[in-house]
Structures are given as C-alpha cells and as structure tokens.
C-alpha cells in the first residue's frame, strides 16, 4: 500500500501515549548544568560562538570546531570519521540533541558539554592544539570578553613558566614541557582551559532541535495545538514497526528518540582503527577526568554529580557499548554508527534485522524477521524525522 494516505489511522490509548512521548512537544527545557556557572550566560555564549568558528585554535591554523561540526549539516559532517589536522577514529556527532544528554562522545568519556569540548582541541588527529596555545589565543584575541566573564587572566608572557606548547595529553615534547611547569601554573592553565570549554558549552546550549514532519503528524493524532500534517501509508506502517515488531523504541525513545544510554548492538569494527571497548573504557575515563563534575574546575556543589556518582561500571555489559544517538534528522547524516560503518539507512535496518554477533562483548539485539516491504517502511518512517 504505497502512496499518500488520506484516512487518519486509528491508535489505541497506549499507542497515543507512546506517540506523545516521542513528540518534540514533550521535550522539556534544556537541563541545568550546575558544573558550568556560565552555562546560560549570553555573554559566554557569544564568546563561545566566536571560539567555535575560530580556525586559529589548531596546529595548522585551518581547523575549528565548525570544520567537522558544520552548521549547514546539522553540526556534523558527511565523513565516516572526522577529518581535522589528521583523520580521526569516530563519526562526528550532532550537537543540539547532545545538550540533553548527561554523557558525551560515543563512549561517554566526558560528563558535560564543556568537558567534551576540551577533547578534540588537544586530539592530534583533530585540532592538534594544546591548552597553553588555547590560553594564548584567548589572551591575544578575546581578552576583554574572557576577563569580563572570568576575571583577570594570568600573565602568559614568561615562557619559562608557560611554555608555548604544553599539555599532559600531548606528544612527548608537550608532556615534558607540562611536567616542568609549577603546579600552580598548571592549574592556572587548566582553569583557563576549563573556562574555554564552558563558553563553548554555553554556545552549544543555544542550538535548537527543530520539529519534523513526524511531529506535525503526532500533533494531529493527539489533538495538540499547532501545525498538523499527514504521513503516507508506508510511513505510518514504518512507525508502527518502529514502536512494535522492530523494537527500535526500546532504546530510541523519548522526544529525542534516544534514552541517553549506551548499548552494544553488534556494530562491526572498522578495519584499520585501534581496538575499541566503547563505554567500558569511556566510563572509566570520565570517572578519572580532572575536568569532570567532581573535579577542581567544576562549579557543581557537593551532591550535584549524580550521574558520575552512580555511573554503572561493568565491563561485561559495557564492552563495545556506544551511545544511543538521537534519531532526529537521521536521514540527513549518513554514514552511520560510531565509525561511519554503514553508508545508508537501508544498511542500518539490514544490520538490525540480521543482528550479527558483536566483535566483542554481547550484542543486545536479536534478529527481527522483517520483510523487504517492512524494511522499506521503517526507512520511510525514519525520513519523517528530518528537521524542517
């Protein structure tokens, strides 16, 4: 039954409850981030926006956050893995839905947006930069806005105290330079670096998730205010499969089509990339990160770090578990999965239907027994999530 539907399909009370839970109108406000005291400060967001697009924050002067997180593409790119100064190991993730997630990166190794922003900048494959260089860019180009938010910056002119390139996470020379620094000076640099991340986070928190055709359809079905729209018969069938036989909404639920958790779905390893344990490593990294919610650069009061305090650490379940991404706008951001392993939505649905064994750990998915028509209908439904 292809083609545009005319009659409104009948939904049970339970199904309407499910539809409402998936509707963008059910998305609450951006959650507060007590670890970032400038999270909702417009001046911080303005500085963060300048920094997000500043290509000087890279080893070759050509890479900014926006190089991979391209605004015209929903803040992602079209590559299997990100390309900055070098080629990375991970698919670039969109930003607007991430604002609602307690964990960042495919493996959840950062517990806030601001901690996440610090990773790519010092990653040799991405920006290839160091925190001392970031501090100098801030001092040189953004001193006024920075100091209005965070107070006077330490004087970086003394190269014996503040080397040009120093970080605990860099190449051998940068690490040696970092080790030679006095602890108080290391902390001063770290504090500037954390503040840098916090302004980027403030900007990212202003990015919006936009409604899709699916939302106009649900508005009609539940009798909500606002624009209403129709879905085709195939798209409705795909929606029924999504919340039913195909079990997609097991994890892809809520108004962002993600439960914010992690799952091993048996995605194959990309050849040529280093061995990857996913969340099993990511959670340990987050717990040890000096820039996490409990660390010295966090603004969070005691007791405000529940995600970290009660984070599950269980290698058996978390090996090769990756973040459940939001499916909003999914039709526009091929390729898919944590290293861009699948080129199309058809390939993704094929994977879920066959449910192969995981390369390591235990896959949570089981074969679905979908017909060719059902696979096509699920893909048709997924395209109704494109932001308009």
């Amino acid at each position: 039954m292809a083609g545009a539907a005319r009659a409104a399909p009948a939904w049970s009370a339970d199904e309407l409850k499910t539809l409402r839970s998936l509707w963008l109108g059910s998305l609450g406000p951006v959650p507060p981030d007590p670890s970032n005291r400038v999270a909702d400060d417009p001046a911080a967001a303005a500085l963060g926006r300048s920094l997000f697009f500043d290509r000087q924050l890279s080893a070759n002067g050509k890479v900014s956050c926006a190089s991979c997180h391209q605004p015209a593409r929903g803040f992602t790119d079209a590559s299997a893995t990100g390309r900055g100064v070098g080629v990375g190991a991970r698919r670039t993730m969109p930003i607007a839905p991430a604002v609602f997630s307690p964990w960042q990166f495919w493996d959840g190794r950062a517990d806030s947006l601001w901690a996440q922003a610090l990773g790519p900048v010092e990653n040799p494959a991405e920006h290839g930069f160091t925190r001392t260089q970031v501090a100098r860019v801030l001092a040189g180009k953004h001193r006024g806005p920075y100091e209005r938010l965070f107070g006077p910056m330490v004087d970086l002119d003394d190269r014996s105290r503040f080397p040009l390139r120093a970080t605990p996470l860099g190449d051998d020379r940068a690490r040696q330079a970092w080790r030679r620094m006095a602890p108080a000076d290391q902390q001063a640099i770290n504090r500037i670096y954390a503040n840098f991340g916090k302004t980027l986070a403030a900007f990212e928190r202003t990015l919006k998730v936009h409604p899709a055709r699916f939302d106009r359809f649900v508005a009609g079905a539940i009798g909500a205010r606002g624009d209403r729209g129709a879905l085709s018969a195939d798209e409705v069938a795909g929606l029924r499969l999504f919340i039913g036989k195909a079990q997609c909404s097991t994890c892809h639920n809520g108004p962002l089509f993600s439960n914010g958790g992690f799952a091993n779905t048996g995605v194959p390893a990309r050849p040529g990339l280093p061995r990857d344990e996913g969340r099993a490593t990511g959670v340990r990294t987050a717990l040890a990160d000096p820039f996490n919610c409990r660390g010295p650069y966090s603004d969070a009061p005691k007791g405000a770090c529940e995600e970290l305090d009660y984070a599950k650490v269980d290698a058996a379940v978390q090996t090769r578990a990756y973040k459940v991404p939001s499916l909003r706008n999914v039709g526009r951001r091929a390729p898919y999965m944590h290293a861009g392993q699948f080129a199309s939505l058809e390939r993704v649905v094929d994977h879920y239907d066959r449910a192969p064994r995981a390369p390591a750990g235990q896959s949570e998915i089981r074969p679905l027994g979908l017909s060719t028509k059902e696979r096509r209908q699920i893909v048709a439904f997924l395209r109704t999530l494109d932001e308009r």
Partner: protein
Amino acid sequence: MSTYGYSSPGQLARRRLILGLAALAGAVVAASACARPAGLDLSRDRLSDHGVFRVALSSRATPIPLFRTHSWSVRLTTPRGDPVSGASLAIDGGMPEHHHGLPTSPKVVADSSPGDYVVNGMKFSMPGWWNIRLAITTPEGLSDTITFNVVL
C-alpha cells in the same frame, strides 16, 4: 488496529499471534523469550522472600521520571512493624523482557530515622517492566531478599 501491509493469510495469522501476546502484556510488544507474566505483583509493601522482613519501597519523585537519576525510599521493619536499623541493602535489577540490568549503580544508605533508608542514583532508561531486587543483611545476621516490579 489497522492492517496496513498484512495481506496474506500467513501474515494475518502471525499478526493475530502478536496481537494476542500484546493483549496479554497490555502493550504492543513483539514476542520475546521473557514475556511479561500475567498478573504481575505490583505491590510495593510486602514481606521479603523468606518472611524475615517487611519492606516498603516508594519513589521520592512522583510521577516516576524517565531518563534522569532520582531517589527512592525504603522502609525496613520486622514483620510485626518494628523498625530495623543498621542494615546493609544491596540493590540491583533490570528489565527481564529486554535482558538488561539497571542503567546506573544505585546505592542504599541509611536515612535519618530508624528503619528508613534512601536509594540514590536510580534511573529508568525506558518505559516497561522493571525489576528492583534488594538483598538485605543486618549486623545481627538476619538476611533476606525481595524483588519488586515497577511498570512505567
């Protein structure tokens, strides 16, 4: 319920089977190896598995939220109702139908009054049938377990 896409007798028969199970489970769920039993005990105040304790469990956040951490209260007494203090409670659980555990590692600590405890860091990552299992031990050497069902 519409029958889009189901036209052959084989497909209709399979559809009826799925509908039958859905009626049993009270939701549209595809057949699974651990389907929800009928008549699930949803009570939150009852005796533990070997009758050693009486346990009452309640959420401190109502309605019970999805996707975010929150706390629950445990009231632990003897079957007669005398508060039991100083117990250690270990908590685990999960979703039997989906073969996975709790998404976080909640911890139970004593609250301010005798017999009262708090479970911190609970989180439910999706609607459906959840188990919450408590393993209770007292310094005097009493121990027992109890499993509660929560359907969201």
